[in-house]
């Protein structure tokens, strides 16, 4: 069903590009809002639902200057989402006292028994726990947002070769983390 909807939206974008912005905006929202929410959850941003809406509100005024059809819109949407994530952590670093500590949202914590217990509670940041910020970002953009190497390179401001290397190391680290977690479970 999602595939069918996506195809219709893609057709909408292809056929009516340049027409009513509201129609294009609706197609972009339907296609990518889930991925944006998932990306923000994976990155541990506070109140990811609200930030998702902010991303699309920021995206709407830029519809007129869009190029590249649906994929162009996808790149722009996640550029905005990435910027919101960066802003969020800058605010957290500046005013840590004002941010209530939420272990579920703290991606910096290491895997522990508590993390395992909370795996199915909805908190997603633990999935990428123990990885560096750049590694977490590559995996969130590649896996959750389903962006191409080229699109991730554009968002992170790196070359495609650098992104490939980052991705490889990130996956290796994640594998190691998962192994350690599984070993801890079995002990």
């Amino acid at each position, binding site marked *: 069903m999602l595939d069918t909807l996506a195809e219709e939206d893609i057709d909408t974008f292809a056929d009516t590009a340049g027409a*009513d912005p*509201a129609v294009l905006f609706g197609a972009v929202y339907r296609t990518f809002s889930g991925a944006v929410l998932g990306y923000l959850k*994976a990155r541990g941003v506070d109140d990811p639902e609200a930030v998702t*809406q902010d991303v699309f*509100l920021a995206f709407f005024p830029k519809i007129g200057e869009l190029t590249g059809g649906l994929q162009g819109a996808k790149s722009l949407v996640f550029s905005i989402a990435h910027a919101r994530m960066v802003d969020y952590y800058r605010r957290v670093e500046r005013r840590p006292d004002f941010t209530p500590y939420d272990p579920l949202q703290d991606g910096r914590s290491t895997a522990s028994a508590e993390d395992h217990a909370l795996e199915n509670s909805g908190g997603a940041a633990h999935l990428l726990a123990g990885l560096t910020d750049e590694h977490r970002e590559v995996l969130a953009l590649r896996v959750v947002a*389903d962006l191409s190497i080229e699109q991730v390179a554009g968002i992170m401001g790196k070359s495609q070769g650098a992104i490939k290397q980052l991705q490889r190391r990130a996956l290796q680290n994640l*594998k190691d983390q998962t192994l350690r977690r599984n070993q801890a479970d079995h002990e």
Partner: protein
Amino acid sequence: MSDTAGSRNGSRDDASVDRLLLEAGLDDDGGLRNVLLELQGLAAERPMPSDAVAALMRPAVTRTAVPTPAPSHVAATRHLAVVPATGVMPATTVVPEFAATDDLAARRRAKHRITLTTLSVTISLAAGGAVAVASDQGIRDTIGQVNHAVTSFVSTVGGGPAPAPVETPAPVPGQPGVPAVGPTGPAVTVPVPAAPGSGSSQSTQPAPTPSGSGPAVPLPDLPLPENVTPGVPGVPGGPLNGEGQPPALPLPPTPPVPLPGIHP
């Protein structure tokens, strides 16, 4: 553990994860693959749009829509209210509403006619009252001078047919007392130029005044109705006439008419 992952796009998620592992050169040991599928599952839930976002998704056409054609129930007033707001009038709604708009226009025209008629009657009565006032000899001379000045000005400016355009009742009250200096009867239709003809016999200064001040008399625009009040004895802007009868309409006091060259 990963019930949600792959439940909707199972094959697509698995394929993309496998492709990713292949690109990274990592064997699928199960654990990593499951974590990646779980990560992908985070994107499966589409959030409800907020009010602001939902508003942006509404097509522009519906936001400024003109009521769809429903001839049987679209009221004339509602149609008229809609048209100025959108500026769009679908052809299909014009026909059933045309009768209503036409009636309204007809009523407007009738109202305008009534207004015009009332105004004309008022002016005529005022002119008649002015005439009655002018019947007084003391005033007649003064007004006769004004009349001659006006007449000469009109004939100078208007050329040959100058007398004709002045035949309407409107400009007549502009110089109250000027028209029909001679006749004291209903002077509504007596044109100004006719007055000099009859008034010359009574005026003591017919020729010199007009000739002396003819083309150089810059008459200002005289609003209706108006009175020549300065220096006119016996007529302090009030409702008097030589016959001692109050005019049909009281003459409103007005500022004096500056007519250089005319000295009462």
